[in-house]
């Protein structure tokens, strides 16, 4: 069990650290960092599903017989670029929130909204 599943456990640990940061921390930028850690966990999970023992990179060349599966790699390759694009959108939103509210802390944002609603 340990020998065959250790990768998954460590990857899950990574994902959960990211999830914890996203849920618990109030800072929007820290949340984005947590999100990207979670994302890396998912990437590693996918890639590790495609790996074969003794396999090699799926670039065909003579004298190599076993290759890892190319499909997860394709999915993750595009996902990384999409991930950084969405990270940019998130950051842009955070910057605009900061310009409007003067803070990126969730609690202070909620307080500001409350104040405006009551007055």
């Amino acid at each position: 069990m340990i020998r065959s599943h250790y990768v998954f456990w460590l990857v899950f640990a990574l994902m959960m650290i990211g999830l914890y940061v996203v849920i618990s921390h109030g800072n929007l930028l820290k949340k984005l960092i947590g999100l990207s850690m979670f994302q890396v966990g998912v990437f590693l999970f996918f890639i590790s599903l495609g790996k074969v023992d003794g396999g090699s990179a799926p670039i065909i060349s003579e004298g190599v017989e076993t290759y890892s599966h190319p499909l997860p790699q394709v999915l993750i390759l595009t996902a990384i670029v999409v991930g950084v694009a969405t990270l940019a959108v998130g950051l842009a939103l955070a910057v605009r929130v900061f310009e409007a509210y003067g803070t990126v802390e969730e609690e202070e944002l909620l307080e500001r909204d409350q104040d405006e609603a009551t007055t």
Partner: protein
Amino acid sequence: MMFAVMAALLVTMLLALVRAFVGPGRYNRILAINTFGTKTVLFVAVAGFLFGRPEFLDIGILYALVNFVAVVAVLRLTHDDPVSSQNGEDGT
């Protein structure tokens, strides 16, 4: 032989990692990350030889490059931040 080199690289990575964790201050961290980056370049090169397919060294070239860009970016974009530009106590 390759394995010994790989082990040395991994141990050095761990040492640099500790330096990046404890700091103190920004410059120590950048230095540690820069060192770590060169170790990853070597890692890619040695791993290629260790597992018998050394033809993917393009990745190593990219690492060497990107590592430099990261150091420049960190220096440039944190330069005018008053909070933690001093060394010493920083909150972790």
